[in-house]
Structure formats: C-alpha cells, structure tokens
C-alpha cells in the first residue's frame, strides 16, 4: 500500500511541479535572446514568479519520494510505472494550461510510455 501511495506522490506531485514551472515560464514570456547575460536575466525573472517556487517545491518532493521508492523496489519496477507521468502530464496540460492534445500527440505520448516500459523491462 505504501508503495502505491508514494508512487502517486511521484507521478502526481512531480507532474504538478512541472506544470507549475511551465506556468511560470509562460508568465515571463517567450525567450528571444540567448546571450548568457540575457539568459541570466530570464532565470532571474523566472525565480521571482511564485509558480516557479511552488513547482520546484513539488519537484523536490517528487524527487525525494522517487529516491525512497527506489530504495524499496527495483528500478525495472519503479521507472516503467513512473512513465505514467507522461499521460498524467498531457492530461494536466490540457486541464490547467489549456493546451490542445490532439490524437496524434496522444498516440505519441502513449508510444513513449510503452517504449519506456520496454526499455526497462527489456
């Protein structure tokens, strides 16, 4: 039971963190200049957005939950299950970020999940 609970924290918490980070980056807007000084400015602005801190907090929680999970179970069991994050991520992006996930993108996401499972089971 505790394995499945922690897995839910890894998948849902980690993905929610990435969604929050995405929201922060969309808030600061598209980056056009890639000079190191301009990039530092972008990162500085990003870290002043509250969504970024919420996202990093959730990502840290997901990461440490993953480490704990890996100390209980084999990688070949944990990683294929955490690949569900791709599906959860597409759903959350549709719901919370207003992205359009069409059939082709869904097929791509499902194939990526299947591929990750094969890589670790194979």
């Amino acid at each position, binding site marked *: 039971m505790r394995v499945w609970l922690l897995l839910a924290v890894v998948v849902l918490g980690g993905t929610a963190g*990435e*969604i929050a*980070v*995405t929201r922060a*980056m*969309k*808030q*600061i*807007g*598209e*980056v056009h200049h*890639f000079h190191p000084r301009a*990039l530092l400015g*972008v*990162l500085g602005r*990003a870290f002043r957005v509250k969504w970024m801190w919420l996202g990093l907090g959730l990502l840290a929680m997901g990461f440490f939950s993953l*480490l*704990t999970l*890996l*100390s209980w179970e084999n990688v070949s069991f944990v990683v294929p299950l955490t690949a569900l994050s*791709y599906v959860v*991520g*597409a759903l959350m*992006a*549709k719901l919370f*970020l*207003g*992205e*359009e*996930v*069409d059939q*082709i*993108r869904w*097929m*791509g*996401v*499902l*194939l*990526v*999940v*299947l*591929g*990750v*499972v*094969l*890589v*670790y*089971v*194979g």
Partner: protein
Amino acid sequence: MKLRGRFRLKTRVLIVLMVLFGALGDVLLGKGMRQTGGVALTSLRGIFDGLDLGFHNHLVWMGILSLIVFFVCYLLLLSWADYSFVTPTSAASYAVVTILGWMVLGETVPSGRWLGVLVICFGVFLVGRTPSRTDTETE
C-alpha cells in the same frame, strides 16, 4: 484560439541540446556514482555518506553541470512551447542513453530494450509532427 504550429529552428536546437545534455548527465552521474561504490539507502547517514563521496568525483560534477544545462534548455523551451510537446520529446534521451551505453561503454543491450528505443523514437516523431504551441497566447 490562436494556433502557432511552426517548428522553429530554436525549438529544434534546444530540443537536441536538452536531449543530449539530459542523456550525458544521466550517464556521467551513473558512472561517477558507481565509481564511488553506490549510496546505501538504508539510513540517512548512508545517503549523506554516499552523496559526500559522489561530490568528490569529477564525473559526478560533470554530470551535475550537464543536468543544469538540460534544465535551462527545458525552462527556455517551456517559455514558448507546450508542456505536452516538450516533455514527451525529452524521452528521446532514453534512446541516446542506450546508444551511448552501447557505443561508448560497450554495454550489451538486449533486443527488448532496442525495441523500446525504436518505439520511443516513433512516439517522439509523432509528437514532433504536432504544433509546438497550442494554448492561447499569454504574452
């Protein structure tokens, strides 16, 4: 709703950099941590001792630097591209890690894993065929 489907040069370049540095970071961290003898996850003391050994290994530091480059590329991409576009695309790093392991480290890769790599590549190809940004402009 305004759709922006151009798969621009900067998107391609940053995806390639993100995938390469993500894979390189994983390989370097994995190799460096194995050189240190691994982390005992049985106690907090074991974890900190293992991480302390890792931080004295130059491969681990190169791995961390690679992962920082990966994360910056990921953040920059998310400033204009969809999350549901960028994240599945980053899975191509599984393929790069497998190919690097086979070519550089001389690892034996079972056929099931090669099949997985092919399926991931096809999935990434399909995601790459969709518009890189579909949400309403927020800028």
